């Protein structure tokens, strides 16, 4: 079969991410928010190589756990989780978080005033542009030629790799 995969809506809004985390049991008292990325700490108290803007310290997760973090990127917040903690905070948890995020994002948009709506629309356009740029860059590295087309605000990127035989 040919693949059909819908990815979760990227989490670009910090407030909605914090609401979503609160829904899953990580309220404000358990979550640190930093303007710049800070180091994550491992289960032995060691400083990890990874940095994040939104951090849940290991004390709130479990004795053998490492810090959990979300790093801010142009294409949304990205979860940083250790292999050990993936058992609890793996794809299923991330999907659940993504669904809660999408819910809060919808609520936020419904409540938003006109000016705020324009700001959100602008954010969305910037996100699609960032996604587009990221795909172009990676596709090139992976040896694909990219054919791009647009229909309204939708962007389609066809990644083509020539094969023989």
């Amino acid at each position, binding site marked *: 079969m040919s693949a059909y*995969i*819908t*990815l979760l809506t*990227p989490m670009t809004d910090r407030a909605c991410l914090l609401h979503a985390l609160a829904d899953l049991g990580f309220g404000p008292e358990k979550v640190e928010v930093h303007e710049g990325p800070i180091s994550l700490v491992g289960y032995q108290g060691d400083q990890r190589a990874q940095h994040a803007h939104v951090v849940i310290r290991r004390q709130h997760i479990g004795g053998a756990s490492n810090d959990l973090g979300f790093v801010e*990127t142009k294409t949304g917040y990205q979860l*940083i989780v250790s292999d050990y903690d993936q058992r609890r905070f793996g794809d299923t948890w991330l999907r659940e978080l993504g669904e809660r995020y999408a819910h809060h994002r919808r609520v936020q948009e419904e409540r938003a005033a006109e000016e705020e709506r324009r700001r959100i629309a602008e954010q969305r356009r910037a996100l699609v542009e960032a996604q587009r740029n990221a795909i172009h860059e990676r596709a090139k590295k992976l040896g694909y030629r990219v054919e791009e087309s647009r229909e309204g605000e939708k962007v*389609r990127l*066809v990644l083509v790799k020539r094969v023989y035989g």
Partner: protein
Amino acid sequence: MIVNVAARVAKSAANGPGERFVLWVQGCPLACPGCWNPDTWDFSPRHRMTVDELEAEIAAVSDIEGVTFSGGEPFAQAVALAELARRVRRRDLSVLVFTGYEMDELRSPAARALLAETDVLVSGRFRLGERDLLLPLRGSRNQRIHFLTERYRESDVAAEVKMEVHLEPDGRAVLTGFPDGRPDEVVMMMLVPSFAARSRST
């Protein structure tokens, strides 16, 4: 007649020759390990659409040369899809079908009816052990492409492997076609520069 639909894309260039309307059906009894679309295995109703509705939707798309049935398992809904295929071919559109069955398993009257309306069939289970990322329109080496009519020949599908990303205005990304690796990982790698950090941490 009702089709249990998993998803559809109005225009894709990565699911067969030219631009095509692609219909992924819901429900597959084969459940091949490593399948790209395990969420399409369950036979519970997902989006129930009539053949009339699907025909109208396809007819409204301009500049396509054909329709592709994927899934899920199209031959699990062969009666309705044979009717849909018959109607779209009357509109001079071609029909390409992906199936997990081997050709010699498709002997029932319903299966024969769908085969009779199919221009290109890609057949065979997806076998993880025979996975090959450089095969056009296939995921594993055991799978076969059958040209059932004169409409296409091997050179129409042979030279390129394609995957396709659709970026929706709300930031949703849909990946289709034949990904160079696990599809969710491929898209994550492409969209998120820090993705690799996720599995390096211990």
